[in-house]
Every structure is written in C-alpha cells, then in structure tokens.
C-alpha cells in the first residue's frame, strides 16, 4: 500500500509539472538571451548550415562582431562523441558504486544510476534544458520555460527542417546544433543526481528516490547550471570559473548528499557490522569507465569555456591532457597516503584516488596547465582520502563516500582553480586575488543553496512518502525488497 501511494505521488508530480511546461511553450520569450544563446536563438538557414564546413575555418580571422553562427562540423562531431562519452560515465558510476555495496544491494545501487538516466532524460527535454539554458528570468537565477520540450530548436522552411545552432561566444564563428548542446548538457544532469545515490545506498526507498531525482534536478541542478554556465547566470557574470562542473556537478551533489544523510540516518549495523564491498573488480571496472567517459565531460566542455568558441580545438586538447594527468597523480597520492596511514596500498584506494583526481580537475580542466594539474592531482588524493577518513571520526554514514569524494573534492577543486588558473583566467598564483574570492563566493553560494534545498526536499519526502525502507527490508536487502530480483543466481 505504501509503495502504491508513493508511486501515485511520483506520477502526480510528473503530471503536475507537464502542463506548466506545455503552457510555457506557448509563451514567447520577452527578450532573447544576451550572450551565450543569443545567436542560437536565430535559427540559421539550412543552406548556410550546409555550406558551413567549407567556410568556417577560413572565415575566422576576419569574422565581424555578432555574426550569425555557422555550423562547424568538426566541433559538432566531437560534441556528439563527448555526449556519448558522458553518458558512458553513468553505467561507470553504477559499477563503481555497485561493487562497493553488499551483494544484496547491488542491483538497487546500480538502478539508482540507471533510473536517473530515465527520469532526467525526460525531465531535461520537458523543462530542464529550458530552466538551465533558456532565456533568463529573475536576474540570473533560472531560465524561463520558453524552451520547454526543446521548443525552438527546430523549425521548418519550405518543408525542410532548419536546426537552431548553439554558440557560446557569438562574436566568433563556429557553432554546433543546439540539439547537440542540449543533449551534451542532459548527460551532465543525469550523472549529477546519480552521484548523490552513493551517500544513501543500501537503505533508501526506491520510490522516494525517484521523486527526489525529479525534484532535485529541477530545483537544484537546473538553477545551478544556469547560475554558473549560462551567460546570463549571476555567477557566470561574476566571472566564477567552472570548466566542466566542479561546482555545478560535484560540489552540489556532494553537499546535497550530506544534507540527505541527515534525514536518512545510518544503515542498521553501521559501523560495527561488516559492510565490505562485495565486488571490487566491479568497482575498478567502474573507475575505468568513469575515467574514459570523463574525457567527454572535460574535453567536451571547451564548448562552454568563456574564452573559447571551438569545441574541438586546443582548449579541448588541454582539458584532455589535464584529465589524464591529474587523476594519474591523485591515484598515486591516495595510494601512498593509504600505504603510510593504513599499512597497505589498496586497489579500492587507487581507484578512489583516480575518481578524486577527476573530480578536482573538473572545474580547472581548461584553465590550468599540466604542471598545476599534477599538483592538483597530488593534493586531490590526500585531501579526499582525508575527506573519507572524516566519516569514521564524525560517525556519519556516507555509504560510498559521495560527500567525502565529490563534496570535499568539488569544493577543493573549485578553490584550487582560483589558485592555479593561468589559461583564459588568472588565479591567485598568477596574482589575481579577486578570482580566488569569486571562487569562494561561488562555492559558498552553490554549496549553501544545494544544502538548504536538499534539506527541505528530504524533510518533505521523509514526512510524506518516507525516505527509508523498513528495518526488515533493509536487512533482507533492497534488491529483493524493492525490485524482487537478485543479482547473482
């Protein structure tokens, strides 16, 4: 009965939000977005789009200001690949987390990531993209719903489809179809909410989690993406640096994970009962998949770098390099820290270090040079190892260390970006104190917003649907009680 009620609530939430989105689709935007999407608002003629590949590279130096965007097929190809790479991170995350839980909860943990692909995939098309990257309402706080259901990304001229183009900096030529940009960003939204599931694994009720995914993405992720990445967003205007999601993705999910924990409580038997990972090979397979996909995450984000208009150019190359170097250094430093502190270099430790390095380099990927990437990586391993050790000291139950790695790593990475940035921005070491302070403001604002809204959401869900499974169900395992399945037969 309780499940049925919860399911009804889930359906009702979706049903309530659909009409809002559909109504908004009718509304005309009062004014087009000013910078990032202004050119994309004007649908390029199909003929121009077709002719673009030949003209784009040569036209670059003499490009007049505010020209209509011209399709760049190289950028488009790389962004299509990058989008698919980011999607691949989600099963990577599912395996990373799935291996770390006990055998009786592996399917439920994997489902936490997979169902996020389902829910956010639809949410993003219905309203998420518009809330994040639609024309601004409220002084840089959130987008309006004029792009709900991906409205305006396609039109028809003489029966032929004309696709809107997205270009981050309208003064430079070279754009990608806005559908590609929208889908690239969709993958980010999917994985961000799934990251939170690491903190709540092995005890959260599946129905409540599904509703949480929908509400959190809508109320926390979408506005944050708008603040930081949309050219009208207030943090973007302030000059906050977040190359590929240190603040929007890792900090927000990690801090939200901590807020969620407060209402969820510890797992039964924590910390005295044995809760060792049931399959570390699965976890390390997940680490490998995450690292691979992360190249799309970071090197694809050259598209939103404030000083770049080419997605598949030098900046993407730099981001690719730092995304290789930092996690390599972080895997080693976590391993060495653990070797010294606990006596053995564990496989889980090396894998966790790699993830920590990826988290920390994410906001900085295109802003720092390889030397700084090594330093950031080395620090990431030790800082996040400390973040995880904190759990034992403070006795909270962050099942798979979503806060310890993503919250702590995301915060550290965002601040370190303000210290080490030299490409396209100047950090503390390059003599710009102001940039560092901007990073502090961005971290504090995004962290506080994510924490407070998640607290409210968790409180409401706890009082209405209940967040946690019954004790008996938890002991039996969530695979059996939430899904009527078992992973290994």
């Amino acid at each position, binding site marked *: 009965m309780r499940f049925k009620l919860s399911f009804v609530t889930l359906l009702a939430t979706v049903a309530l939000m659909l009409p809002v989105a559909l109504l908004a689709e009718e509304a005309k935007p009062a004014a087009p977005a000013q910078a990032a999407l202004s050119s994309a608002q004007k649908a390029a003629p199909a003929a121009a789009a077709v002719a673009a590949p030949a003209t784009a590279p040569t036209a670059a130096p003499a490009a007049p200001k505010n020209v209509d965007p011209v399709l760049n097929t190289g950028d488009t190809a790389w962004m299509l690949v990058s989008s698919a790479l980011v999607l691949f991170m989600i099963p990577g995350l599912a395996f990373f987390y799935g291996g770390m839980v006990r055998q009786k909860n592996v399917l439920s943990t994997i489902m936490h990531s997979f169902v996020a692909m389902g829910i956010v995939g639809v949410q993003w098309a219905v309203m998420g993209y518009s809330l994040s990257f639609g024309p601004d309402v409220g002084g840089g706080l959130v987008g309006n719903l004029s792009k709900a259901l991906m409205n305006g990304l396609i039109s028809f001229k003489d029966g032929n489809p004309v696709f809107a183009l997205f270009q981050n900096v309208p003064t430079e030529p070279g754009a990608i179809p806005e559908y590609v940009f929208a889908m690239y960003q969709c993958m980010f939204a999917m994985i961000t909410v799934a990251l939170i599931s690491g903190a709540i694994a092995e005890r959260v009720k599946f129905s409540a989690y599904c509703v949480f995914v929908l509400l959190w993405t809508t109320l926390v992720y979408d506005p944050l993406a708008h603040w930081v990445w949309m050219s009208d967003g207030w943090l973007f205007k302030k000059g906050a640096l977040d190359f590929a999601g240190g603040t929007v993705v890792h900090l927000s999910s990690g801090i939200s994970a901590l807020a969620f924990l407060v209402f969820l409580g510890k797992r039964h038997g924590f*910390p005295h009962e*044995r*809760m*060792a*990972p049931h399959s570390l090979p699965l976890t390390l397979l997940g680490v490998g998949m995450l690292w691979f996909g992360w190249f799309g995450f970071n090197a694809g984000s050259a598209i939103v770098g404030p000083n770049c208009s080419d997605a598949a150019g030098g900046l993407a190359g730099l981001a690719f390099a730092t995304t290789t170097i930092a996690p390599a250094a972080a895997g080693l430093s976590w391993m060495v820290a653990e070797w010294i502190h*606990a*006596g*053995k270099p*564990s496989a*889980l*430790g090396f894998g*966790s270090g790699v993830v920590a390095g990826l988290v920390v380099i994410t906001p900085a990927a295109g802003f720092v040079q390889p030397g700084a990437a090594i330093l950031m990586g080395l620090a990431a391993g030790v800082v996040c190892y400390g973040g*995880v*050790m904190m*759990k*034992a000291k403070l006795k909270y139950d962050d099942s798979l*260390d979503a806060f*310890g790695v993503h919250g702590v790593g995301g915060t550290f990475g965002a601040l370190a970006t303000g210290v080490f940035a030299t490409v396209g921005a100047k950090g503390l070491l390059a003599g710009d104190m102001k940039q560092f302070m901007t990073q502090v403001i961005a971290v504090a604002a995004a962290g506080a917003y994510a924490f407070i809204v998640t607290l409210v959401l968790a409180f409401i869900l706890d009082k209405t649907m209940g967040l946690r499974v019954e004790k008996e169900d938890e002991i039996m395992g969530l695979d059996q009680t939430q899904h009527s399945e078992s992973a290994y037969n």
Partner: protein
Amino acid sequence: MKLIEAIIKPFKLDEVKDALNEIGIEGITVSEVKGFGRQKGHTELYRGAEYVVDFIPKVKIEIAVADELVVKVVETIENTAKTGRIGDGKIFIIPLDEAVRIRTGEKGIEAI
C-alpha cells in the same frame, strides 16, 4: 576402519591429492570450509572501515581407510601439507563403524 579428516591450506590440495594417489588412496572427499585455529583471522580495510575477518578459507579432506593404512596416510598428509607456518591445519582420526558402496551393496573394507 578409520575416517581421516584433514583440514589443510587450500593451495596444498593438489599436492596432497597427488601424494595420496601415489600411496594407493583411490577416493577422497573434499569440501571448502572456513574456520580458525591459532592463526586467528585477518583484518581487511576499506576506505578507513576496518573489519576483522575471523574465519579463514580452508579445505577439508575426508578419506576412509583400512586400519593398517592409517599411519601411512596421516604421514603423507602431514608431510605434503606442511609449510611450517602458522595455519597449516589439523588431522583428525575418527573410528568408522561401517561403510557401504551404494552401487554394489559391498560393505566394510570392500566398500572403501
């Protein structure tokens, strides 16, 4: 007749089996078991959470033998399963009242 029950380290199983074959033992029963003796357990550490694992994987061999073979079998197992380090295992010798071969109905020594 006696039933010889030996608890040994898993990696010694093949060596013990071959040695027993050489002295003419034709049938043994093997089970994977867990337990601890003086070796006690070991500690596993996952992201700062320390778990003491009390039970260590071992292999149990059961062999039914005629009385005159007991000493030889025990010696063979002892010699091949020994590493000299803690946790090598134990051998128990248990009186065996009767044995029956199911296929033929043979009993006693004939059955083993």
